[in-house]
């Protein structure tokens, strides 16, 4: 009798376990987890592991034989060039994102107002700079700025204007790297803003028109509030990508002249790979993380807050 009871309890427990397992399998969150598992593994291998390895490298001495804690970072803080790179990275990223956003915004409006029939062609053409691999398009820009064969200088000289040392003078060089970044990145803003514009309900514009709102009032009280989240997310995403930019500066100036166009990634490469100081290079590249994290937290918090209010 006792035996029979124990057997019954055992089988009940097994059945319960089976049921809970079945329930777990049927749960949406489990299925979602399993479906995202390949991506999670990919991120673990290609993002998390290299990031942790970079942290490990940043805490080694130059010959990578000794743990030195945070002394690579404290060393960097004493270097004049490091602070110059911090300053330049901020100027580069913020100026480029600002102009990309402005140009993207206006171009999106122009495209939005083109009749549907011809709009697709314009969208396709305007996306070209963003679609071409940046290393290739930057190479074309390099030739346009080239000291011997610059097409821009050729045109200037035809008008009797002296050629400009586009990449030889620090101010012009900074202008050039920002210009190329804006040229490549503005279409991304344009397409995001265009998608956002298309999702604004037509009734809102009609209501504003009935209320007698002018162009600016419609923009201020209808379009911009409706686009705000997209504007913030696009700006955040672009700021992160622009801060981490490597290819444009590397191809165009390599940080020259006098290190005055270096950004974090190019200076990290110069120190780590070219200069053989991998721990210091890793430290420079990791310096971006806290800056971008703080920016991301503020912007995302604002977006979530407004999402909840809505």
């Amino acid at each position, binding site marked *: 009798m006792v035996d029979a009871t124990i057997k019954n309890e055992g089988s009940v427990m097994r059945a319960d376990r089976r049921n809970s397992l079945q329930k777990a399998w049927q749960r949406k969150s489990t299925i979602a987890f399993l479906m995202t598992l390949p991506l999670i593994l990919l991120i673990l291998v290609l993002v998390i592991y290299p990031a942790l390895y970079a942290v490990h490298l940043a805490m080694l001495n130059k010959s990578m034989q000794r743990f030195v804690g945070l002394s690579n970072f404290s060393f960097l803080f004493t270097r004049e060039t490091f602070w110059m790179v911090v300053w330049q990275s901020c100027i580069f990223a913020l100026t480029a994102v600002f102009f990309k956003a402005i140009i993207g915004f206006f171009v999106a409006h122009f495209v939005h107002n083109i009749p549907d029939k011809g709009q697709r062609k314009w969208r396709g053409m305007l996306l070209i700079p963003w679609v071409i691999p940046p290393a290739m398009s930057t190479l074309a820009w390099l030739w346009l700025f080239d*000291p011997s064969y610059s097409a821009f200088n050729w045109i200037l000289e035809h008008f009797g204007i002296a050629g400009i040392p586009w*990449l*030889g003078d620090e101010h012009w060089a900074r202008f050039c790297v920002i210009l190329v970044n804006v040229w490549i990145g503005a279409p991304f803003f344009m397409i995001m803003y265009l998608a956002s514009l298309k999702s604004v309900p037509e009734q809102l514009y009609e209501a504003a028109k009935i209320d007698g709102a002018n162009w600016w009032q419609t923009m201020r009280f209808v379009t911009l509030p409706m686009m705000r989240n997209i504007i913030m997310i696009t700006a955040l995403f672009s700021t992160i990508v622009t801060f981490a930019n490597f290819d444009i500066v590397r191809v165009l100036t390599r940080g*020259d*002249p006098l290190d005055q166009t270096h950004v974090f990634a190019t200076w990290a490469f110069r120190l780590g790979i070219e200069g*053989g100081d991998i721990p210091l290079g890793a430290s420079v590249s990791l310096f971006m993380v806290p800056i971008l994290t703080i920016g991301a937290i503020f912007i995302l918090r604002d977006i979530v807050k407004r999402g909840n209010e809505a």
Partner: protein
Amino acid sequence: MKKVTISRRRFVATGAAAAVGVVASPYVSTAQSAGTLKVGFWDHWVPGANAAIEKVAKAWGEKEKVNVEIDFITSQGNKILLTIAAESQAKSGHDILSFPSWQPARHADNLEVVDDIMADLVKQNGKVNATVEYLGKIKGKWVGVPSTAGSQIKGPASRIDLLKQHAGVDILAMYPAGAAPKADGWNMETYLKAAKACAKANVAFGIGLGTTSDSVDSVGAFFNSYGAVLVDEKENITAKTDKVRAVMEYMKELTSVLPSDAPSWDDASNNKWLVSGRGATIMNPPSAWAVANRDAPDIGKQIWHHGMPIGPAGRHAPFLPYFWGTWKFSKNKSAAKSLIRALSTEAAAQSMVEASKGYDIPAYANFSTFKTWAEIGPPTGTLYHYPNPHNHQVLSIAAAPSPHRIAEQIYTQGLMTKMVVRYHRGEKLDSVLSYAESELEGFMRS
């Protein structure tokens, strides 16, 4: 179709017989190692130059019964540096790798000592110069063997016609083909005078002031010609010496007649400057001349390679050797060493020089008079003086003789070119030298 069936007994018996066969007849090779040898050679700029080194390696493989797998690794985008760094970290990779100039010192702890090979090669091929020894012999031990492929001298490559017309310099008389130089009067003063005259005639000298190797090597040669050293062998910072001040004054004057965007030049800019016909001279191996002969033959036939002007500390030409080395963790060290010996024979060096149209420079004293340099043209004899056949110049590298870990930083960060550009742009000399001192203090971390 007939179906073949194998019984379980027969399968076991056949498997056992095969296993015995494998064990009883191992692969034997005369290179004491057998198997496969993985080699990573530098991917040459000159079209067709890879074929010569590949031919030597394959012939060695056939003779020694070793399967040679060759990768040609470009230095474009620093791929060769990335490969070396990755293999060094992973402790796995090629058995032989080409190492650019500073790399043997950087990876000395991971590289196999090759003193035995170098002793034999010096006996067989003649001495190597002090720069090869400085870069390849670390803490008294050779960790790399100088490679013919890729090694180059970046001396002046000048337009015969423009120098004569605008500066009155007869470069052919100073550096005649097939004869010793008669260039006693070719000094820093005459060079500067010629640079000013050519700039006035709108065919300026094309010396880069960026941070890539052509710029650094060129400016470094002027520093060496003045004996201006930024950090001495005992790690003392010597940036504020009279010699450094003297070269800075000279460079300020020279820079004032260089193209205005020279601070942004990369390794292609000087080539384009010469090939486009806009410049009277550059400092480069013969690649610019080769391109000119292909794309602008009228310019190509006017280009002559010659020696540097002499300075207070001698006549220094920038020399940039490549090395072949094998990792300590290589799986096939004995075969690797055997192939490196085969690549370092006179016949192998000669074939590489020929295939590279004279670009490659073997490091050994007996190998500076191959017929390729004397015969190639047009103009015939343009490369006669390129390999320094009369020991007319000291072949040196920028930032030597500072300790390697500091010298490499001076070189890769282009400290000397930055000093020159700062001074040229109006910064006071003392301020520039203080900046250099501050940077050098940073380079000294270990």
